[in-house]
């Protein structure tokens, strides 16, 4: 009989501990109903939730997304493919899946939105993705800046788009693809000094050899050019 209070205390303590955690915890993640399973990915998503390893599995999905985007498509011209063009019909669902697992993966959202809007010319899909990302990170200014840049890109004003993206470039989490894009847009608009500064940054900080090689090549080309008059760059 004297042991019963011990059992009661044990039950009470466990229930209090569980109830406290249940009451306090507010999930920052999308509910399971929002996770659309990618091909062959349902088991991995289960594992991500069961092990509490959403970030790691989002990383894996992001690596897969980059591999998917990095693999040239058949029947697409080499030049188009080298510049990031092509169909890549699964790009949006794959990008969204990364954010469904970890909506806080800002770099993945920016990389995906940038690729969709500026390389694949699908700004609507980029806006849709950023809208989803903003749902779980409503205070993320980088998403809002990106949305603005996409808006300007529709008006075909490279200098304005480059200026809109500029604040994101200073962020250590900025995808190198966006830096490359900003440099390209500046070059297109005639802002060679700004383009060179961005290419220098890519050459110094990126871990992607392809981007580094391209940045060094562009720096050499830009070094041989004369800076145009400022009015010319902003005339568009």
């Amino acid at each position, binding site marked *: 009989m004297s042991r019963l209070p011990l059992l009661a205390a044990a039950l009470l303590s*466990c*229930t209090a*501990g569980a109830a*406290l955690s*249940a009451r306090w915890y507010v999930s920052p*993640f999308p509910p399971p109903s929002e996770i659309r399973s990618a091909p062959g990915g349902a088991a991995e998503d289960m594992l991500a939730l*069961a092990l509490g390893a959403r970030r790691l599995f989002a990383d894996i999905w992001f690596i897969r997304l980059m591999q998917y985007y990095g693999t040239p498509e058949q029947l697409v011209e080499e030049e188009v493919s080298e510049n990031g063009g092509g169909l890549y019909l699964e790009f949006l669902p794959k990008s969204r899946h990364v954010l469904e697992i*970890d909506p806080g993966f800002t*770099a993945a959202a920016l990389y995906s939105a940038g690729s969709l809007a500026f390389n694949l010319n699908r700004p609507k899909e980029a806006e849709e993705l950023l809208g989803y990302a903003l749902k779980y990170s409503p205070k993320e200014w980088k998403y809002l800046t990106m949305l603005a840049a996409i808006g300007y890109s529709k008006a075909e004003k490279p200098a304005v788009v480059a200026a809109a993206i500029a604040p994101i470039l200073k962020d250590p989490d900025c995808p190198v693809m966006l830096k490359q894009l900003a440099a390209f847009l500046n070059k297109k608009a005639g802002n060679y000094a700004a383009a060179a500064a961005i290419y220098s940054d890519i050459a110094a900080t990126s871990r992607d050899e392809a981007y580094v090689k391209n940045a060094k090549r562009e720096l050499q080309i830009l070094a041989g050019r004369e800076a145009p008059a400022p009015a010319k760059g902003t005339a568009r």
Partner: protein
Amino acid sequence: MRPVLPVGAAVALNSFSESVRNRFFTIFAVFALAAIYASVLAGVMAVDQEGRVLADMGLVLMELTVLAYALFNASSVLLREAETKTIYLVFSRPVPRWAYLGGKLGGSLLTSVLMLAVMGLMHLLLLKLRGFGVPPGYAWALAGSFLKIAVITSFALFVSLFSTSSVSTLVISGVLWTAGHFAAETRFLASQAAGAKAAVLNAAVWLIPNFQLFNARDAAGAAAALPPAAFLSAAAWVLGTYLAALWLLSRKEF
């Protein structure tokens, strides 16, 4: 007569030194080192996200390694002492059962702390070698992992007192680990369900500890800070399962 608390501390230290001397400790440490090194390969694949991937993979591997060792240790420590009759020798001396059980739990938790600390240092060294600093919220991530390990260790110790083998203890504890991480999803399902199904799911929500509250490594930056409720919740669950284990131990004849 020796005071009771130092007796418990002596059991804890003995249990800790036994764990550290155990060859499995070395195996797991070597495994963790090799696994963290393997994560460098994954980091290379992530290109500009290498730092994030290295940090995430290292933290997950560390937690799983400590979890595996803690479960193995907690599920076998009491069984082993009963099989080798060591427990009879201990209880023939003036060692209270609560001090013995507390000591065993304390020893297991000390081992987990040591493992997390050693592997954490190795991980940070690896990150430094790859040119990265300490990831934001790193200490919180380790603290959260420890809270989860503490809860599951005390639960495994409790289960080992009524289960028939170490394997069944491991399985039951594994189920709690999974259910604990699914607590938020269970809550969502409970809100969508009705009738008996909703009642069962709601009961699960209020009984199973929500491991996501401790899961600081899945939260980014400042959001990784553990709230006081996380420490209180883990402490309550550790205490609850300790008391339940004590209840079972007090019913056994030694």
